C-alpha cells in the first residue's frame, strides 16, 4: 500500500520542509517514505510543489507522483488551486486547502473530497510568520492528519520536533497542528 501526497505551495511558505516532516512522521510510524521536492529555478514566491510517499514496502519509484494516483493534494495557497489538473484526478481524491471559505472553483467537483482550514489565521495566532509570510505548512499537515489519519498525530508532532529542535518554534508549530486538527472540516 502506497499513499502519494502532493504539497502545492509558493517558494518561502515551507512546502518543501513540510514534505520532509510528513515523510518523517510516516517514518516514525514504521512506514517506508519518500519526500521529493520539485526543484526549479524558481525563487521566493513562485509556485512549487513537493511530493510525499508513505508506503508499507520500500518505495521504488523516483518519479513525481502520478496525477491519477495521488491520494491527497495539500494546497498551501488558495490561489494555487488552479494548478491542479482537476479533470485527471481519480474518484475520492482528497484536496485540503488553506482557505477561509469554500473555493468557488471547486464547487462543482463532486467526485473529490475537499476540506479546508484557515491556516493563515492559525499561523498568525501561533506567531508562525517569517519575513512577512505565514508559515502554514505544519498547520496544513495537522489538517491532513485529521482528514486521513494516515500518520499518527504523535508522529507528526515528533517530526516537527525533529525538524526544529526544542524551543519556541517547535512549540508554536505543535500548537498550530493541534488547532488545525481541531478546526479542519470537510466541505
Amino acid at each position, binding site marked *: 500500500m502506497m499513499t502519494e501526497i502532493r504539497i502545492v505551495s509558493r517558494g518561502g511558505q515551507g512546502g518543501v520542509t513540510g514534505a520532509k516532516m510528513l515523510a518523517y512522521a510516516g517514518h516514525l510510524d514504521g512506514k517506508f517514505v519518500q519526500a521529493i521536492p520539485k526543484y526549479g*529555478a*524558481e*525563487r*521566493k*514566491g*513562485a509556485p512549487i510543489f513537493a511530493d510525499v510517499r508513505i508506503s508499507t514496502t520500500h518505495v521504488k519509484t523516483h518519479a513525481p507522483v502520478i496525477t491519477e494516483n495521488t491520494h491527497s493534494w495539500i494546497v498551501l495557497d488558495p490561489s494555487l488551486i488552479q494548478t491542479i489538473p482537476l479533470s485527471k484526478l481519480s474518484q475520492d481524491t482528497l484536496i485540503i486547502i488553506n482557505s477561509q471559505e469554500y473555493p468557488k472553483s471547486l464547487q462543482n467537483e463532486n467526485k473529490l473530497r475537499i476540506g479546508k482550514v484557515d491556516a493563515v489565521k492559525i499561523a498568525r495566532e501561533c506567531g508562525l510568520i517569517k*519575513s512577512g509570510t505565514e508559515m502554514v505548512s505544519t498547520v496544513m499537515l495537522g489538517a491532513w492528519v485529521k482528514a486521513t489519519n494516515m500518520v499518527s498525530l504523535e508522529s507528526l508532532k515528533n517530526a516537527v520536533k525533529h525538524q526544529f529542535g526544542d524551543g519556541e518554534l517547535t512549540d508554536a508549530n505543535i500548537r498550530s497542528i493541534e488547532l488545525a486538527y481541531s478546526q479542519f472540516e470537510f466541505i
Partner: protein
Amino acid sequence: MNVKIPEMMDRPEVLLRGNFACAGCGLSIAYKTAISALNRPIVVIPACCSSVIQSLHPNVTYNVPTLNIAFAAHASAASGIARAKKMRGEDTTTVVWSGDGGTFDIGLATWSGAAERNENIIHFCYDNNFYSNTGAQRSGATPRGAVTTTTPGGKKEKRKSIVRIMAAHDIPYIATASIGYPRDLYTKVKKASLIEGYRFILIDAPCPTGWNSDPALTPELGELAVKTGYFPLYEIEKGKLTFSRRGERYRDPEKRVPIEEYLSKQSRFKKMTSTQILEVKKDIQHEWDQLSLFE
C-alpha cells in the same frame, strides 16, 4: 559629475519585467543601471545568478543580445565577439557580466589573458561576495568572518583585492561602484564606454536572499558598505586613482560609519567575534592604504 536622473530617463529597457530574480535583488539594479548606459551592448554571461534570473528558455528577460557561456569562459567569449564585430565592421559594445565567483575565482586566468591583450571589452563584476546561484558558498570575494555554506564557521581569509589585481594589469580604466549609488554607477559606465581597451567595473550588489537581509534594504546596504569604508568608491584611469566624490570622505576612519552597523544588518556576520571585527577593520584600512598608493 554624476548624471542627472532626467538624463537617464530615456535609457532603453534592458531588463524586462517579470523575471526570476528574487524580490529586492541587487544584481537586477546593477544590471539595469549599467547595461542601459551602453551603446548597442552584447552581453556575455557566465554561470551565475544572472544566468538564472533571465528565466526559462525560450523566453528571456534580457532585452539585449546575450551569450550564456561556461563559468570560466566569459572574457574569452567576449574577446571572440569583440574581434568578430571588428572584422564585420559593426558598431557594438562587448560586455562581460559576471559575478564575483566568475571574476575572482574560476575565470581569473581568462580575464587576465584578455586584459593583457587589452581586448576591447567592458568587464562588469557584480559583487555579492559569494556564489549566490548555487546557494551561498564562499568565493574569493567573501569577506573575512562571513558565514557561507562552505565556511560555516566564518571565512578565515580576507577577501581578494580584485581591483588591485586588475590594476596590476595596467588596463586603461577601472572603477568601483555600488547599487547604493546608481547615478554614480551610470556615470562611470558612460565614461568607460568612451574608452578603448579592457575596462573593469566592480559593482557592489547586495543579495538579500543569501545575506539574509531585508529586501527593502538592498540599496541601503550598498550605501552602508561605502560609508563604512568597506567598499570604497573610486576610479583608476591609466594607473591613477581618484576616489569618487561619494567615497572620498570615508578615507578618514573617523568619518566612517561604524562597520558594526553594516555587519549587524546581515545574518551572515552574526557569528563574528569582536576580535574578528577588529581584523576586518584592519583589512579595510589595509585596502585603503594600498589604494592610496595609486593616487
